[in-house]
């Protein structure tokens, strides 16, 4: 195979990915926009309230451009989007991008830390459960994973708060940081862990960690349950394969068989699973964010949806959609690196 040909394949793959990306995002915008216009809530009423006089209603409706046909509205919105203008949220009176700049880092931070915890705990547990299939160890792990998977986050969050915050006083309560520090830390990245360290305020950092323990524990458990189950089943498949038997017969140490041979082979699908779990957390967990008064993007979109704040809903959906697609593409690329078989296509 000549270099020119390889280059062509790489270029074509890149072009494919870019085209997929653009089309998906465009589809996402059109669908969200149209659904938003067919909500049973009147966006004008949502802004001016229930009792505003009729003349105010009419004036607001015209100011919002809602008197125009839907395709005109969509075209205008898309046009503004191309210039990087996501519009203004009617509820916060701020540009949607500014709002997202405040809400998204909160979700990003929570999702990232939770995912790291989930991977560090979940992957080894899954591997061990597969190796020790049908022992008590396996059963315990499967039950824990089942609980993590099936107990409602809402309930778990409230019980967690009651036990660890209200009774035992081990962790801080709802919110991202104690009020005492809340407005003394300059927001640089929007991620409280990093901002408090940048400010060199260790007490504030501890406060942030204390506030994060519960939500991270709960989202981490939820993600971990999924990762553990998938790791276990991937590993079981590999461990029953002939090459593993061969390796064992050859007298390789068990650790080497499990980690170097079997585990190496599940790396690619596992990356996809982890990426999916991460993307899920990134789209924001509305219930967790509600219970822990966590100003994240899930809460932002939901509240905006209930108030028919369409610019905010669209902006939030686009940002999350782009993250989702980007993570998937990244997982895809990583998969190609980890698994030679995927490189051929």
């Amino acid at each position, binding site marked *: 195979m000549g270099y020119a040909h390889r280059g062509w394949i790489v270029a074509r793959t890149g072009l494919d990915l870019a085209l997929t990306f653009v089309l998906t995002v465009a589809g996402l915008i059109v669908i969200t926009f149209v659904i938003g216009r067919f909500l*049973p*809530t*009147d966006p004008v*009423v*949502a*802004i*001016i*309230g*229930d*009792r*505003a*006089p*009729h*003349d*105010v209603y009419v*004036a607001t409706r015209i100011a919002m451009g809602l008197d125009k046909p839907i395709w005109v509205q969509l075209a205008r919105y898309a046009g503004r989007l191309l210039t990087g203008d996501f519009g203004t949220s*009617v*509820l*916060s*009176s*701020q540009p949607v991008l500014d709002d997202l700049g405040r809400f998204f880092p909160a979700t990003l931070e929570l999702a990232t830390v939770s995912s790291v915890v989930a991977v*560090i*705990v979940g992957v*080894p547990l899954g*591997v*061990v459960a597969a*190796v*020790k299939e049908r022992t008590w*160890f396996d059963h315990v792990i499967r039950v824990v994973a089942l609980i993590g998977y099936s107990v409602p986050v809402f309930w778990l969050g409230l019980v967690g*708060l*009651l036990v660890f*915050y*209200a009774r035992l*006083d*081990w*962790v*801080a*309560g*709802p*919110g991202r940081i*104690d*009020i*005492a520090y*809340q*407005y003394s830390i300059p927001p640089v990245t929007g991620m409280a862990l990093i901002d408090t360290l940048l400010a060199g305020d260790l007490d504030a950092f*501890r406060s942030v*960690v*204390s506030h994060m*323990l519960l939500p991270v524990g709960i989202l981490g458990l939820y993600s971990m349950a999924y990762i553990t189950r998938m790791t276990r089943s991937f590993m079981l498949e590999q461990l029953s394969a002939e090459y593993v038997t061969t390796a064992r017969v050859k007298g390789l*140490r*068990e*650790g080497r068989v499990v*980690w170097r041979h079997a585990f190496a082979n599940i790396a690619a699908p596992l990356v996809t699973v982890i990426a999916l779990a991460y993307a899920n957390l990134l789209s924001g967990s509305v219930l967790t964010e509600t*219970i822990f*008064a966590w*100003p994240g993007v899930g*809460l*932002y979109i939901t*509240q905006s949806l*209930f108030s028919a704040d369409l610019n905010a809903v669209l902006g939030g959906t686009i940002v999350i959609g782009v993250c989702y697609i980007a993570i998937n593409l990244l997982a895809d690329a990583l998969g190609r690196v980890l698994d030679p078989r995927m490189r051929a296509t």
Partner: protein
Amino acid sequence: MPNTTRRAVFGLVGAGAAATMLRPGRAAAATPADTLVIAKNIDDILSLDPAEVYEFSSGEIINNVYDRLITFDPADYSKPVGGAVESWTVSPDGRTYTFKVRKGLKFGTGRALVAKDIVYSLTRVVVLNKTPGFILTQFGWTAQNAADLIKAPDDDTVVLTFDKAYAPSFIINILSAGVASVVDSEVLTSHEANGDYGYAWLKTRSAGSGAYRIVTWNAKQAVVLEAASSYWRGTPPIKRIVFNHVAEATAQRLLVEKGDADIARDLTADQIHALASSPALAFQSAPKTTIIYFQLNQTYEPLTKPKVQEAFRWLADYQGMADSFLKGQYGVREGFITTGLPGALTEAPYHLDVAKAKQLLTEAGYPNGFDLEVTVFNTAPYTQIAQSLQATLGQAGIRVKLTQLDKAEVFTIIRARKHQATLAYWSPDYLDDNSTANWFGWCTDIADNAKTHTAAWRNHWLIPELSKETDDALLEPDTAKRNATYEDIQRKTRDSGPLFVLFEQNEQIVLRKNVTGFVLGPSFDTPVYWQTKKARA
């Protein structure tokens, strides 16, 4: 133990140990001594510009950030007193009021508040004409005539002219509303864009002479206020107030229980009941002007019959609901003016009487009842009240189908007048009986394009005579006579027509014991913080 397992187990133990070391020791009760932390659902805030503020949370905030022309002594809300103005005289024809501006009021910039600021503030409300603009434009003020009717001959004097000789109590009460807040005209002029009177700038900021200034508003997160040392009633003891957005009532309860919040504002009746024995907490309650009423749209034939309308009034278990799930957060109220306000009725003639209601339905031609769709908010206490009504109406043969929807969706349906029957709430826009009387007892045109949309209009209830009585009350100079007229209008709407009132709110809040001096007041926008103190816990 095979190597793999051992390694994994060691890894887990290590991670666990690291996590334990990270666990910070939690100091006890955590809010700083000079900061008041309020756990509240503040997602209703749409704007902080007093020309636009019309929601509960924002109304409360601007009441502590601006001085209104007229205000109240927190010790006695029955009598309005001078705020940004200290005295006034009325012309013989009753149409022109001359106000003397209070000395010693200072804006955040340090500049003294003068008459031109008042003129600018009232004028911008009329010209911008946002949602609450009608409160001032009902005086006949328009963008065109404002310059002639709202004037400042010198720094200490404001002269306001009205299109009619309104009842003096009406005018003074109106000038105690949020739209009568005084803004800093120089600051706003410097932030003006396209003749918007600084609206775009002020929406998220403050420019007032009140006890506090707005430092931060992060929508759906928090509002932070900072004390103004120059406040004319004295420097507030609390330096900083943080309204923390906590949507979940359970989370609010935990925060105030642990001392991470000083006041919890939206607890349920059950939660307040459960906290009653806590030694660290205190309770405060105040009768509010908010009422819950039932409305019957006159587009649905059975609901137009006077006897059917009366039957409904005998089919609500008022006392039963108040004594059970409403647990003191709402009390029975059958007239639309609430406890403590002038004109409030003392009697409540209706109670649950199924036999009587059945008799009325039979006389109206519905011995077997009829089907009825009731649309309600999907939140407490509306769902519970609706379920109770469903049961009692059912006993008389009215078969209720409950449709529970999100608030904004219900509003959309009601504004479009597509409902059959709904539960709704009302709270007057300003502390004068006219606000509520007009809502319940005024409609001279039920067409879709009618100029004024009141509750009567929303239910296609045409009442020219009652509307005239309501209009006349506005011009009655004798306050006692005026109050008597409102009593009469209340009895008329209570005993006939498609609108009937069920309950009045009694706001209950939970505070840490070391917090004192917080006053709720009767209305959504009357709470004041400038006297609030916090002892060391």
